[in-house]
Every structure is written in structure tokens, then in C-alpha cells.
């Protein structure tokens, strides 16, 4: 007596393809596209999807979570400074207080629960998907151009694969140090890009949250992209600002979406 149901290869293939294409077709026109599935992108996505906005996260890696799996120097405990432990509470992440105002938890614990919360809220993901360019329309960002990540890793003459475009009312650049979307605007002379200053944990976290915002009509910078865009100091292996910056990016995106006429709220 077999343990598993009798299902053939073709049914499995069709299930994978159907589900993937359902997402792709539905989210080719999203309310918000977030570039990067690190802590700030996941947090922004979770918040926006909770507010019933159609939210898609594109991630170039196979895995979701970015640097949130590891605290620093290949050691996995991740830390946050107060008041970011309230997000741990909200996500039901167990943690311990290690010093006054400093909290720690294993990265896999925090990261998996944040991913889970984003999925539960309704965020859709396209992983192994590399940001290629922005869609610009009427002097505002109106979507992203993406391609399969492996395409960029192969010689151009054997991978002449055109990208595709996904439309969105708001794009959030949560791509970390790469700041891919902000850099694209800089290439065109549309925004100035300052680059990151040396590490200064005590000060950089406040500044990142304070500077989170719309850097160009339709484009919001969150997390380490903020650091790069405004030339703020690096923050080192602590994640409170990433989470709070993601939350603030979501609040700003929600406000902007409400300002845009005909916003599609599910």
C-alpha cells in the first residue's frame, strides 16, 4: 500500500507552472513591487499586504530573507535595539535581552517568522528574478523590468534573453547596498547618489529610519538603500533600523497609494 497519492510527473509540472504563471499574470500589474526580500523588504511587504495592497517582492537569490539569516561574521544570532523588539513581539519571535536596550535571537528563528508573516499577509514572491531597470512614465516610476537571474550570470552572446516589465503604482527599493533602482535613476541623472559612509551603529539606525521616503516620484528607498542614497554611516550587524525602515516605507507607500486615483484595494 503506497503512502503517497498516485500523481504523475505531468501533473506536478503543470501544478508548478500554473501556480507560477497565475502569480506572474496577476502581479504584472501590482500596487507595490518591492525589490529585495531582505528584512526591510519583507517588513514593508508584510505591512502593505496586511493593508490589502497587491504586493510583489522580486528577489534575485533563490532564498528569501537576505542578510537576516546571519547576525554578522558568519554567526547567526541577530540583534535589534529598542524599540525594534516590539516587532519581534508582534511576529511572536522569542528573544532574549542581552544588555540594556539590546535584544538577540537566532537568525533562522527571526527570519523564518518574518517570511512566514509576509506570506500569511498575502505577499507574492518572484525569486531568482533580477532587477534590470525601471519603467518610467510621466516623470514617475511606474514599474520594474526584470529577467531571470541566471541570464545575467552567463555570457551575453549565448543568453540573448529579453527581460519583461511588471507595472506598479509604487516601487520600493529594498535591495540593500546594491540600491539597484536608485542607481538606475542616478545613471539617468534623475537623483543624486551619495554612497555609504563608515560604520557608526549608534547613529546610523535613527538616520536610516528618518531618511526613509520617496526619493523620486513613485520610488521609495528602504533599509540599506537609504544608507547608500543619502551617504549615511553603515550600521553593522544589527537589524532594528531595517525592520522599522521597512515599516515606515510601507506607511509612506500606503499614503501615496491612497493619493493616487483609482487605487486598487482588494
Amino acid at each position, binding site marked *: 500500500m503506497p503512502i503517497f497519492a498516485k500523481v504523475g510527473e505531468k501533473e506536478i509540472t503543470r501544478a508548478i507552472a500554473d501556480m507560477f504563471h497565475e502569480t506572474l499574470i496577476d502581479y504584472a500589474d501590482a500596487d507595490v513591487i518591492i525589490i529585495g526580500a531582505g528584512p526591510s523588504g519583507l517588513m514593508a511587504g508584510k505591512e502593505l499586504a496586511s493593508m490589502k495592497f497587491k504586493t510583489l517582492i522580486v528577489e534575485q537569490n533563490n532564498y528569501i530573507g537576505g542578510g537576516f539569516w546571519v547576525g554578522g*561574521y558568519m554567526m547567526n544570532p541577530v540583534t535589534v535595539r529598542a524599540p525594534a523588539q516590539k516587532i519581534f513581539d508582534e511576529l511572536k519571535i522569542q528573544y532574549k535581552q542581552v544588555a540594556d536596550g539590546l535584544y538577540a535571537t537566532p537568525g533562522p528563528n527571526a527570519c523564518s517568522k518574518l517570511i512566514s508573516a509576509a506570506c500569511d499577509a498575502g505577499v507574492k514572491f518572484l525569486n531568482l528574478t533580477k532587477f534590470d531597470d525601471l519603467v518610467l512614465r510621466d516623470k514617475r516610476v511606474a514599474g520594474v523590468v526584470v529577467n531571470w537571474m541566471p541570464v545575467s550570470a552567463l555570457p551575453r552572446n549565448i543568453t540573448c534573453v529579453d527581460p519583461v516589465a511588471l507595472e506598479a503604482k509604487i516601487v520600493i527599493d529594498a535591495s540593500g547596498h546594491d540600491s539597484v533602482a536608485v542607481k538606475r535613476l542616478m545613471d539617468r541623472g534623475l537623483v543624486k547618489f551619495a554612497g555609504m559612509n563608515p560604520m557608526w*551603529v549608534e547613529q546610523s539606525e535613527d538616520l536610516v529610519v528618518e*531618511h526613509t*521616503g520617496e526619493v523620486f516620484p513613485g520610488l521609495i528607498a528602504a533599509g540599506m538603500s537609504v544608507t547608500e542614497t543619502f*551617504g549615511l554611516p553603515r550600521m*553593522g550587524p544589527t537589524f532594528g533600523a531595517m525592520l522599522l525602515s521597512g515599516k515606515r516605507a510601507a506607511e509612506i507607500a500606503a499614503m501615496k497609494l491612497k493619493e493616487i486615483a483609482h487605487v486598487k484595494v482588494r
Partner: protein
Amino acid sequence: MIKFRQVHLYSEPSSSTLDIDEVASYVKNMLGCDVDVREEFFTYFLTPDKIDYIANKIVATKVFDPRKPFTKHEPTPIEIEFEKKVLTNPMKRYLGILYDGFELQTIFDELIPSEENNLEHIHIAFTNRLVCTHSENDSRYHYRAIICGYPTLICTSGIVEAPAKPKEFYFLQQYYASMGNMNLDEVKKKFEGRFIDYDDSRLTEVVKGYVTQGLFYYITGEPFCTKKQCRLLNAHWQEDLIESQVNNGNLCQDHLKILNDFKTII
């Protein structure tokens, strides 16, 4: 030798241990001239209609690459909003952003009304912004605790960051960081007393020294002295700063004589 009649000191409310009235008494006893204490500089002079204009100008003085001479930064709306928040909330200390000290000084100068904008009135303003100036000697920016000139700017964060802490402090900090330990308080604790920290109980005494240097700039054209026993020592190390300002706190014989000569003419 400039014969000034009145010294105006402006408070710095984010530094809880700075007793500006005590500094004023010290200056009055030292020079015998009129000294008054005013609110924080921008609170005192900045009118609501000028906040946007001044915030814009301050953002333009930001320094992003310490290895390059000053180039005017083009402000973005998020930076201007942030700067407005700093201007209207002098109780809060935001660090991590560098400003060109001489460029910043011209903004302070612009706000001083014409009836007081002359060398009979010496203005000594404090800021908690991190200021730096570009040195032609090594072609890079350096943090500064004082910007002599009109008006004199004393940077309370520069007092902490500009003179170097003991070398071993940085070695230990680097070691801790390499181990993923970003808790700077632990490192600070090991060197307690050997440097001036934020809200240090010795801050008022140290500020008296910097104010004296700012005033000597007007008296002789040279704010500094090379003698370690003189309050006019331009301390490059925190331990020298503590020695000259806290442990000693006096002028050398040469500068004492200059001061006495000055007092006979005002």
C-alpha cells in the same frame, strides 16, 4: 587686537551637562566684558518663514567624501525635511552626518542681524552637528571641535569625536567589531575617564577652553598655543584635551600676559 564689547553665548540644549551660565561667568571674569546667554542659536534667530530656506542651505553643506574638497550638495526633499526637524528640535542629537564647518559658519553669519553683525559683538554659537574642515596638508576632511571666525562655532559632538581617543580604544573596537560585537559601551567602559564622552560631566570645563580659544582668535589672530600646560592647546588627543582643560585649565604665562594687556584696552 580687536576691541569687542559684548560676547553672546548661545545654549546647546542637547548636551545635558553643559552649564552655559557657568561658561558665561568664566568669560566675564576672564575678560571683564559684558557676556549674555541666549537660547540655542536657531531658536533665537530663525523665524518660521526662513526655516525652509535655511534647511536647504544646511543640507547643501553636507560632506559625503572626506577625501575630496567641498562641493556643494544638491538637497533632496527628504534631506530638507530631516534638517527642518533638526532645526526645530535642538534637544535631540542626530549624529552621523558630516557638514563642512566653514560653509555652515556662513549660514550662522547670515542669520545675525546687521546691528549685531560687527566686531563689537562676538557671537559664540554651539552646534551638535558634526562639523569638519578640509585640510590641504593631507587633502582630506577632519572632524573639528571649533571653527574660529565669525561667528565662532563650537561643536559639542566634535569635542567627543575630533580629538582621538587612546590608540588601544580603536584596536579593541576593531577587535570587537570583527567578532560581531557592536556594543560600543563595553569598549567605552574599559577606557572610562580617558576621553570626553557625550554628556560627560567634564564638558563645561572643556567648553570653557574652546570658548577661550575662540576669543583669542579675535584677540591675537591665533587661537592656539603649543604648550601642553596652556588652555589654548589645540589638542589632537583626548588625553591632552583632558590634561589641558580639566586637570590644568589655565593659560600659560605668555597668554596670560596677552590677556591682561587686552583687558586694559577694553
